[in-house]
């Protein structure tokens, strides 16, 4: 359990009042102080633990470096993103070719209501509603289970993560044709079946679904899985249809009730801000330039803002709708169509209404967990920025000191990471994949994202260490972008053909694995990577030393 160490009474996370982000006092501002508040200050894990920190972590990290080579998870095979694009391309082509035959074998599109086959598994306990609250990750009861559900990957590339499949949202930035359906591999089908089996139970086990989802959700079931993990769709399958019907009606009654107020004096600033942000949120994806789509976003954001006056609409929240919108839209767009150019007008109005309402509710649920990111002075972000600094000091002290020498505030670059949940730093397909994991983690969006950001930094540590003069040579953000973007995108050159796009998208997915894998190692959770039981003890120790308590009460 987390508590202040009773022995020395000091908090583990925070000693100095200086905020690592270099925030200075804000004059005349009535807002929570920028220095830590009791609520947001991370506390120390109780229990016997030596005062040593960095050294032991580095030892630990070295000791688990071999986890990268274990082959027990997909990212292992791509733990080095410096794979030559030629290699990637040829491997991708071979996978594509080998699966091209199965391309024609299409699977039925998922129903919007996931009521397909209701296997009633009576050994599952009776429904609880709402779904059980997420547990802190280190308390997860499945910890003891050694057998993980994750399929073992064979050397080579993991088709499931190719954004080549019809339903993979990477297709949004990657035209699907001509390489769609490569994911309809046996393995993918098996995974999908496994998901469906869990989803369609009379009472879906969310811990089980989380465990399955952590390493990626097959595109066919992603929308339903997200609705469940998000807490929007009840775990009890009998209640699902009714709940969805009711919530969707409720959303549209909000629209009737509030949307007409958008030009009134009181609200016109809010609406104006939303209105000017929507066209520039994903400016290069044609889908988001469609009037119909922009209006859907405007309604979603405006209704949310009106109903959440404590934060209102804050730039960046608009980005958080996009993944839900894409995933839910995917359910209703004909398979053969390219999502990034599909004319949304062509979708039946009722279906569009469903996409919009579900996006609204899922985004609302997500924001419920991170609302202090957007209230006045954005204390949630400030505390995460601060924690990122603390975390980096422990896991990569060299980089931390380097940044300090360069007078780089964590606030300068990581504010946006937390504010937009890394959506500005990654291609949309990568974000969707990342969100599989964030959804699978209890407190993923409020808490685990911190580790993903730390993984980002440590992954690029050697690039950053090589940079001598951030402040005067160029902007820090620009510089970080110039490092991240080519690596994440897997290529420094803009893609020239749809094949190259597909491959680039595929490398995107791999880059994602590296980050997630990296964050996994840092967080050291043996229970999620159960086959590394040899490291269990040390990982547990690291858990207690590395895990700050949940940020939100």
């Amino acid at each position, binding site marked *: 359990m987390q508590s202040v160490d009773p022995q020395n009474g000091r908090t583990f996370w925070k000693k100095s009042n200086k905020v690592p982000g270099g925030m200075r006092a804000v004059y*005349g501002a009535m807002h929570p102080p920028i220095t830590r508040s009791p609520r947001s200050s991370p506390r120390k894990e109780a229990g016997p633990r030596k005062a040593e920190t960095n050294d032991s972590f580095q030892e630990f990290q070295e000791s688990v470096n071999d986890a990268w080579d274990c082959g027990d998870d997909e990212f292992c095979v791509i733990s080095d993103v410096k794979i030559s694009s030629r290699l990637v391309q040829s491997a991708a082509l071979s996978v594509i070719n080998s699966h091209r035959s199965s391309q024609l074998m299409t699977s039925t599109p998922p129903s919007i209501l996931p009521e397909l086959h209701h296997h009633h598994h009576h050994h599952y306990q009776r429904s609880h509603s709402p779904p059980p609250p997420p547990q802190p990750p280190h308390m997860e009861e499945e910890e003891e289970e050694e057998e993980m559900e994750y399929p073992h990957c064979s050397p080579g590339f993991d088709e499931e993560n190719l954004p080549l499949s019809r339903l993979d949202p990477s297709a949004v930035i990657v035209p699907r044709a001509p390489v769609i359906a490569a994911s309809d591999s046996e393995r993918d089908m098996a995974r999908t079946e496994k998901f469906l089996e869990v989803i369609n139970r009379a009472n879906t086990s969310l811990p089980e679904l989380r465990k399955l989802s952590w390493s990626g959700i097959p595109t066919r079931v992603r929308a339903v899985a997200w609705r469940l993990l998000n807490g929007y769709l009840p775990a009890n399958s009998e209640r699902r249809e009714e709940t969805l019907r009711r919530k969707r009606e409720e959303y549209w009654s909000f629209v009737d009730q509030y949307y007409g107020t958008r030009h009134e004096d009181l609200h016109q600033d809010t609406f104006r801000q939303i209105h000017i942000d929507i066209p520039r949120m994903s400016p290069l994806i044609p889908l988001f330039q469609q009037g119909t789509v922009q209006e859907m976003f405007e309604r979603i954001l405006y209704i949310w803002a009106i109903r959440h006056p404590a934060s209102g609409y804050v730039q960046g929240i608009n980005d958080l709708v996009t993944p839900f919108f894409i995933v839910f839209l995917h359910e209703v767009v004909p398979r053969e169509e390219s999502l990034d150019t599909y004319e949304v007008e062509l979708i039946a109005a009722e279906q569009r209404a469903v996409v919009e309402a579900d996006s609204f509710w899922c985004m609302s649920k997500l924001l419920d967990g991170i609302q202090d990111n957007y209230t*006045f002075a954005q204390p949630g972000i400030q505390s995460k920025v601060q924690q990122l600094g603390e975390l980096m000091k422990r896991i990569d002290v060299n980089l931390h000191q380097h940044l300090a020498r360069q007078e780089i505030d964590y606030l300068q670059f990581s504010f*946006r990471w937390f504010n*937009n949940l890394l959506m500005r730093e990654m291609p949309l397909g990568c974000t969707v994949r990342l969100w599989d994991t964030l959804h699978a983690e209890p407190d993923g969006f409020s808490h685990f994202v911190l580790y993903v950001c730390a993984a980002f930094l440590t992954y690029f540590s050697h690039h950053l260490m090589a940079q001598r003069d951030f402040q005067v040579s160029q*902007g820090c953000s620009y510089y970080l972008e110039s490092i991240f973007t080519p690596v994440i995108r897997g290529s420094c050159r803009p893609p020239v053909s749809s094949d190259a796009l597909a491959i680039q998208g595929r490398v995107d997915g791999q880059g994602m694995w590296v980050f997630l894998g990296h964050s996994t190692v840092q967080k050291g959770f043996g229970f999620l990577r159960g086959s590394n039981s040899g490291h269990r003890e040390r990982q547990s120790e690291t858990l207690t030393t590395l895990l700050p308590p949940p940020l939100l009460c």
Partner: protein
Amino acid sequence: MGNRDDEYDYLFKVVLIGDSGVGKSNLLSRFTRNEFNLESKSTIGVEFATRSIEVDGKTIKAQIWDTAGQERYRAITSAYYRGAVGALLVYDIAKLLTYNNVERWLKELRDHADQNIVIMLVGNKSDLRHLRSVPTEEAKAFAEKEGLSFIETSALDSTNVETAFHNILTEIYRIVSRQQLPDTGTNEPPGGKTITVEPTEETNRSTNNCCAR
């Protein structure tokens, strides 16, 4: 330009402020990278970029901080006003509201920035002639009344962007080089070391009892 990045005589921190969507980020990218992006995304928090120019044979490196325009970000962005020796207060000549908000931005600067900060009022998007809703003369008169310099620019077609930055940096340079004489007796830092203008500590700043809403 033409100087190595790390060689300069003065380093000036300048902030870009103004309502959301008036073109602050594009003014910055036009000046520092000669780029304009119709598809630019909204700025979140703060970002900065630098460029050096020559004034009187001295190399001046401008470190320009671009801020998010939305009100919610002011708690974050205003922290970056400190230490700034110049501010470009930008509005959109085609959107009256962004001009009407200039007074609020001035108050923002007076509350959070150094009192000697050099402020330039910038009417951006001057290429949108047919949509103009803020007369040049009116803005000019307002600037004079408030003791600000004034210019209209277009980040899109580059009009006056170079001039705007050049003028404000020169103005700052004149003030700084004048101030240095009584301070140190020398006006030349040895070895081209950084000179930043330290803000005078505002102990007698007017009461900050406004809550920012």
